[in-house]
């Protein structure tokens, strides 16, 4: 089995599993209680919060809100701001569905929504994002890197463009994919809200975090007991949160080496593929993609067929973002980049991760080339 779908999810890191183990056994407390068992859980929770805050360069631990994952973090950022001010929502055509669907919902409750277009490489122009904003804008959401293509967005430039026009709207970025391989320092990034999801970087599923810069106000989207300073109710997923912090620490500690080895595998994969299949078309320049992402199409061959053949050969890849029914849908990201529906149907995503070992890139490319040859 060769797993090359790390952008969908990646195996749990041993550091995360070890950190979680006590909280799946004896340390079962609810952090919101007053007794000793609760205090123990509370300490673990707040320790994890300190750790996440430190690892992403947050000024205060209270700027970290734990959520039930990346989608919930995105919803809290976009809808939380829209609900609070009822102002406009500005985002891009290539955002994750969690942001786009939240923006659509904001439109249903009466907010203006403006979507900035992207170029054929999938990059947004900071000036065009700023041009969609106004004094009443509730939130601007621009992802750090795209989950399908891996293309990075110039988030600091978006922030600068906004501020140069004297717009004070908070900027949110979905850093769910980017945090895997890009340094995440909220001060340098300039974003006011940042989403991450544990399972993308070796933590458990069902837990994420939203960084909310001190002073940014938003309404909750999950109501209840008022946990997380009223910003996200619900009993804490202590084991998950502790696991996320441990996974993030391991990710940050190993990032330089990870980027070097994964970039080598990715580049070998693409070079081997290009040599064997001369008409293979990579979706964007490698330089603007995350190092772990490859995204391409083989003209005339549906991704569906290719992926099923790869699956039979023991190689797991994907066609962009997975969806509810399991069927592939035409990617809104590729449509926004001006690709035809047929081109979008042919797009395949191969993503490397922390369990990738030397030789994986070459092996995957050789197998893929053999399948393409048999289909042609």
């Amino acid at each position, binding site marked *: 089995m060769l797993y090359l779908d790390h952008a969908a999810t990646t195996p749990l890191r041993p550091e995360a599993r070890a950190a979680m183990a006590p909280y799946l056994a004896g340390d079962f407390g609810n952090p919101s209680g007053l007794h000793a068992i609760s205090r123990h859980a509370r300490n673990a929770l707040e320790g994890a919060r300190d750790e996440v805050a430190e690892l992403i360069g947050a000024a205060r631990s209270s700027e970290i809100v734990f959520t039930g994952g990346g989608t919930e973090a995105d919803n809290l950022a976009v809808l939380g701001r829209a609900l609070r001010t009822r102002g406009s929502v500005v985002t891009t055509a290539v955002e994750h569905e969690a942001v786009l669907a939240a923006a659509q919902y904001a439109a249903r409750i009466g907010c203006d929504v403006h979507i900035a277009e992207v170029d054929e490489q999938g990059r947004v122009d900071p000036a065009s994002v700023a041009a969609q904003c106004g004094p009443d804008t509730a939130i601007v959401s621009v992802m750090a890197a795209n989950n399908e293509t891996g293309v990075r967005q110039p988030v600091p430039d978006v922030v600068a463009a906004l501020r140069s026009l004297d717009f004070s709207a908070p900027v949110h970025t979905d850093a769910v994919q980017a945090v895997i391989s890009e340094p995440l320092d909220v001060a340098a990034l300039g974003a006011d809200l940042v989403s991450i999801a544990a399972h993308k970087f070796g933590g458990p599923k069902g837990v994420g975090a939203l960084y909310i810069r001190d002073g940014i106000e938003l309404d909750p989207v999950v109501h209840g007991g008022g946990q997380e300073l009223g910003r996200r109710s619900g009993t804490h997923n202590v084991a998950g949160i502790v696991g996320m912090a441990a996974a993030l620490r391991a990710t940050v500690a190993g990032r330089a080496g990870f980027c070097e080895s994964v970039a080598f595998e990715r580049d070998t994969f693409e070079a081997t593929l290009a040599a064997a299949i001369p008409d293979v078309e990579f979706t964007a320049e490698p330089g603007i993609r995350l190092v772990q992402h490859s995204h391409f199409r083989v003209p005339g061959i549906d991704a*569906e*067929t290719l992926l*099923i*053949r790869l*699956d*039979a050969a023991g190689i797991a890849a994907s066609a962009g973002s997975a*969806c*509810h*029914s*399991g*069927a*592939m*849908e*035409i990617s809104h990201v590729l449509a926004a980049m001006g690709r035809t*529906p047929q081109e979008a*149907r042919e797009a395949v995503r191969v993503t490397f991760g922390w369990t990738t070992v030397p030789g994986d890139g070459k092996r995957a490319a050789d197998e893929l080339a053999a399948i393409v040859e048999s*289909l042609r």
Partner: protein
Amino acid sequence: MKVLVAMSGGVDSAVAAALLVERGHDVVGVTLKQWETEDGRMPTTGCCTVSDANDARRVAAQLDIPYYVLDYVAEFTAAVVDRFAAEYMAGRTPNPCIECNRRVRFRALLQRATQLGCDHLATGHHARVERRNGRYRLLRGADRRKDQSYVLHMLTQPDLARVVLPIGHLTKARVREEATRLGLNVAGKPDSQDICFVEGDYRDFIRTHEPAASRPGRIVDLAGVEVGRHAGTVDYTIGQRKGLGIAAGEPRYVVDIQPATSTVVIGRRDDTLVEGCVVEQLSWTDRPHHGQVDVQVRYRSPPVTARIDGTTVRFADPVSGVAPGQSAVFYSGDEVLGGGVIAGVLR
């Protein structure tokens, strides 16, 4: 052998897949996504829904076979859905299941099976394929009340050589027993009935897609004399007796519908009887036939004796309820000889 199984999420195709696995074949399950809501998702009501795909996925997981949902929305919409409304407006009564089998299920999917390295394609249809002397025969399903050979008549020798129908020799009751024995969670799932892409009443689908079908118009007799008015041809079917709103001495029946001019033609019982029909898109499961056959002019009508001469079919006794757009399927006993789409009737 390696077999691609089309799984709808229902009990028949689940048992079909399970029986193939039990016989030791290398089985791959697929569900065709044929229809989607406006935001590109699978529908949540009607047939071919997300929950049907989830049922199929559960069965595949129980059987430990690979399972995929394949996107055939574009093919299905063009070949079946758009034609359904267009054919209706041309005064025909289309059978979308047959068009789907002809153009999507057994054409696109057989091609896909090859690409996926599968020699055979299996479905949960109630019909049988029998090999005899190197030729393949398509036969009625063992459960006569569930027989689906009518909708498979377009299969030809190269198709039949690759098509496997694992439950055709079982009654529906036996299929459910097998599902229970195999512990499949769809054992008690009700049968699907409707046209799969139509949610509720097919008339609503036509009303939406062809507004002209709900234009008011004339009800005329066979001489062309107006005898009443109607609120839209979509409310009528050929052979219909009730609800015509015409006061006459003896019962009146719909004998023809002309949506293009919003005209419904009615007549006496005898006027609904036709002597024969002409077919198009004629195909044969094996060699072409001439002379006497049994013919079935609707999915659930009893077969009648007829003679075939080229594309002309003459019934031994006049038949009522023959509607252009439906298929005339030819049988010899249990064996499907072939069939075609009824293009016109002979009075």
